[in-house]
């Protein structure tokens, strides 16, 4: 049942940072909070492995945690946001509207979004909870 819940009933979460270490470390912190109850993926670093973000990696991360309930994406600085929005537009049309890039701090936002998602909240609620950190 746990697997079914993770794949079919919970909002997934993607963390996008310029730094692979920040992205992976953020997911580690989230995992400590929610265990395996939320599908998590990260994308960090430019296509050559330096600091930056990579649209292809972000698309792959979204697909990896895809759930019909949607996917929340947490980003750090400007380029991560721009590249995440570009990645969303490259998804098939039926998936696009179920993915939201959150305007929230990356670490705190990811932890609180995942905690909210683990309780079975909708994408809108998960995103709003994360974005309240900047409100």
């Amino acid at each position, binding site marked *: 049942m746990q697997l079914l819940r993770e794949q079919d009933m919970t909002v997934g979460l993607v963390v996008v940072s*310029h730094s692979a270490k920040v992205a992976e470390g953020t997911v580690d912190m989230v995992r400590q909070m929610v265990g395996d109850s939320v599908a998590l993926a990260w994308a960090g670093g*430019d*296509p*050559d492995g*330096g*600091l*930056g*973000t*990579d*649209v*292809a990696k972000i698309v792959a991360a979204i697909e990896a945690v895809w759930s019909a309930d949607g996917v929340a994406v947490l980003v750090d*600085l*400007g*380029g991560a946001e*721009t*590249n995440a*929005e*570009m990645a969303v537009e490259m998804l098939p049309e039926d998936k696009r509207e179920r993915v939201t890039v959150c305007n929230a701090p990356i670490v705190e936002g990811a932890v609180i979004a995942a905690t909210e998602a683990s309780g079975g909240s909708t994408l809108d609620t998960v995103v709003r909870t994360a974005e309240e950190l900047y409100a």
Partner: protein
Amino acid sequence: MTAPSKEALVRSVAEVVIAHADELTGLDQAIGDGDHGINLKRGFEAVLASLPESRDKSWPDLLKAIGMTLVMKVGGASGPLVGTFFLGLGKALPEVPTRQDLVAACARAVDGVKARGKSEFGQKTMIDVLVPVQAGLASGAGGAALKRIADEAAEATVPLRATRGRASFLGDRSIGHMDPGARSTALMIAAAADVLEPGS
């Protein structure tokens, strides 16, 4: 304008960016994260590498392919931003474009960049160059005039305080530096003008 070789146009734009990579990175080190030249160089090297397959495409397909390569390879915000400009041109141009077609496609492409960057004219970005160049193109300016407009527009970002992009974190300290995106955009426009209107 003469009918230019597609390959010559792509090479001219890509090579000028690659040749100025260090200068662009230097501008970005002053007010950003110092990767603008490196990132665009990576993207345009990929564009050059794909020329053997892409040079025989129609103008719309070639421009869309360049845009997508930049989106996928650049690794910074400039990838989606410059890529969106090329994608916008490709989507709007017919197979055999006239100057009027170029004016309309350029307007659409500039709107696309504004939407992608959530930015407007005057925020110390590449849009500060695109907007006056588009206006010049629409009012009939030739290659030499467009180059001058682009150069002056990039120069005009120097006294501005950045309100968008990484440079905006610096607040008043962004004043006194040319925006790297404005500079790279002006370089690309000049390179395109040189091919579209030789001797301009």
